[in-house]
């Protein structure tokens, strides 16, 4: 009894020594595979490689595709929580890179674009990781197209998640009337911030990724 009590006290003391906050990061990358945007998948690989080089042991990363209906675990191409030992984490990163390389090489076009479904799936994954910093990257033109059966017009929850739209290319119609492009981005900003996201950013220059993931 006394031994158990001592053990409990020792465990409590050791636990009290540590910082209870999580310092790890979790990143969920959504890759749009619809229509002509599927040709941009090569750039997605650059982002994934950048993340693999930047994330530290203990961090989590997942890559998923945006399809006609994206709220499904089947759309997650690769996911990993890197080991706390650097050598193991490096091995995991190599395996992750090989998996995503295969996906990018054989990407299939989808008829519709369910970005909201991908956001819901990503938010679920990020919350489960329990990471201190949660980031959801959307690699898309942000043009959502849903079939008639798919229902996505309801409030979503993105609390404590920052959402970053990357490589939001302009469509042909945007070139005709740029207000469509800005209106689309504004609508997404309102929706994401309305869902409680901690931050909304748009980055079209891939060289500026450091501003998001550069650790202080």
């Amino acid at each position, binding site marked *: 009894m006394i031994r158990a009590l001592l053990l409990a006290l020792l465990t409590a003391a050791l636990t009290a020594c540590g910082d209870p906050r999580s310092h790890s990061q979790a990143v969920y990358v959504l890759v749009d595979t619809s229509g002509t945007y599927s040709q941009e998948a090569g750039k997605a690989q650059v982002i994934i*490689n950048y993340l693999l080089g930047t994330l530290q042991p*203990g961090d989590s990363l997942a890559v998923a595709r945006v399809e006609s209906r994206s709220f499904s675990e089947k759309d997650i191409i690769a996911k990993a929580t890197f080991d706390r030992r650097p050598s193991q984490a490096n091995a995991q990163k*190599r395996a992750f*890179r090989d998996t995503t390389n295969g996906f990018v090489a054989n990407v299939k076009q989808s008829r519709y674009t369910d970005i909201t479904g991908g956001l819901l799936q990503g938010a679920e994954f990020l919350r489960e990781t329990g990471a201190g910093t949660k980031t959801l990257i959307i690699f898309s033109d942000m043009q959502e197209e849903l079939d008639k059966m798919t229902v996505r017009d309801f409030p979503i929850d993105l609390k404590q998640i920052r959402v970053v739209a990357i490589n939001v290319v302009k469509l042909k119609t945007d070139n005709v009337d740029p207000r469509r492009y800005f209106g689309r981005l504004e609508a997404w900003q309102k929706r994401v911030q309305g869902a409680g996201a901690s931050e909304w950013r748009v980055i079209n220059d891939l060289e500026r990724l450091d501003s998001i993931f550069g650790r202080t």
Partner: protein
Amino acid sequence: MTDAQVWMLWPENPALSLLVLALVAMVFLYAARRPVHELLSALGALIAGPLRIGARWLAATAAEMKQRNKAVLLEHGRQEVGSRVEREFERVAALVTRDLQGYPTLQRKLLDEITRIEEDYKKCGEMPPPPPDWVEAVAAVANIKTGGSEMVQGILEEIKRSVNRIHDKTLAEHRRAYESRHKILESFMPFWRSVDKTLTAVDQKLSGLQNGAAAVDAQMQKYEAIVAKTEKAEHTLTVSAFTQFAIALLVMVVAAGGAFINFKLIALPMSEMVGAGDYLTSSMRTSEVAALVIIFVEASMGLFVMEALRITHLFPRIASLGDQMRRRILWIALVLLVTLAGVEAALALMRDMLIADKQALLQSLATAPQPVAADGWVGHIPTAGQMLLGFILPFALAFIAIPLESLIHSTRTVGGVLFVALVDTAALVLRVLANVARRMARVLITLYDVAIVVPLLMDRMARAGLAAKRGTVDVEDSAWRRS
């Protein structure tokens, strides 16, 4: 009427309003002159009093601390010089044991040689037998007149030949005797040299002993000065403590640099052991703390080694242990230190491997192919250097114990002196503030009087008139009395 004109009696004439108000105020201020003066004086005393008390208390505290610092400094100096005197005595004792234990043999040898020289000298003193008495007989014979007699002539000739023969023989004997004495004298030489050499050796040994005695004398003089608690001894010890403090601090800074390099060597590979994602504080990883702990443990082991070797005396408990137990502690600390040094060397190698692995991963992730450095024997130099540093630095850190001891001992003196100076300064500041408060009260009183200068002048004039009137009455009274 605006708010600014509220106080004006005649808003259309501010100057007149101001003048009337000033006159009214003067009357009231004059009436309240005595209580206001007393109030200002009391306020000055109220502020200055506690400040003066505080200054006095601080000065007394500083004096007391100075006395205490002096006592500690002298006691520490006494102990230090005492141990130095002890060491000097030990050196002299060793010198006496080493050099003078063979002194009886040396003395016997010297006496033998002197005896032999004396004997030889006596031999040299043995003169050849003196010439026989017949010399006088020869002289008498030489005076004999021959008178032309051939017989006498022949006898004399015979005597001359005999004498010449005897003379030659005697001369030859005399020469032989001298020759033998010269030989004896010549045989003196090695003995003289030996005696000279022996005496020189004795002289050198005695000089060494004399030097040792002089060193003991010098230390004893210091010791006596400290025991007598002279100002000079205190000053010397204080200056010495400041010098020790500066030197120890400098060495500690250098050692801290070494510890930092050591930390950099093992912090990354420690993440392989305790994990890279755990944090103890918001900015400090567990792996970094583990690396620091290893470095501190190494420094502690070094400290124990130095204590066990009796180089430092930070732990009286270790110093008072028996030789056997002390030797055990020395070996345990040394084995732990060597083990930790080995662990550090391995961690330094792992660090290199982890960095190479990370580099390879980044190269494979890069879109553009990056040039790969040629991996020859030159590429292994940094690895070997890191391992060597990882192994050597713990031993180098072990020597921190020596400057640390100096720093701890000298910090008591330096800190004490600085604290006394701080308290003295605070006392001075309080004294100055007390004076300022007192003077300020006087200045305010004078300013008050300046503000009511008109009624004051009138009062003075009235008093002067009254006094003059009293003076006239007094004069009339005295005249009346005289009449």
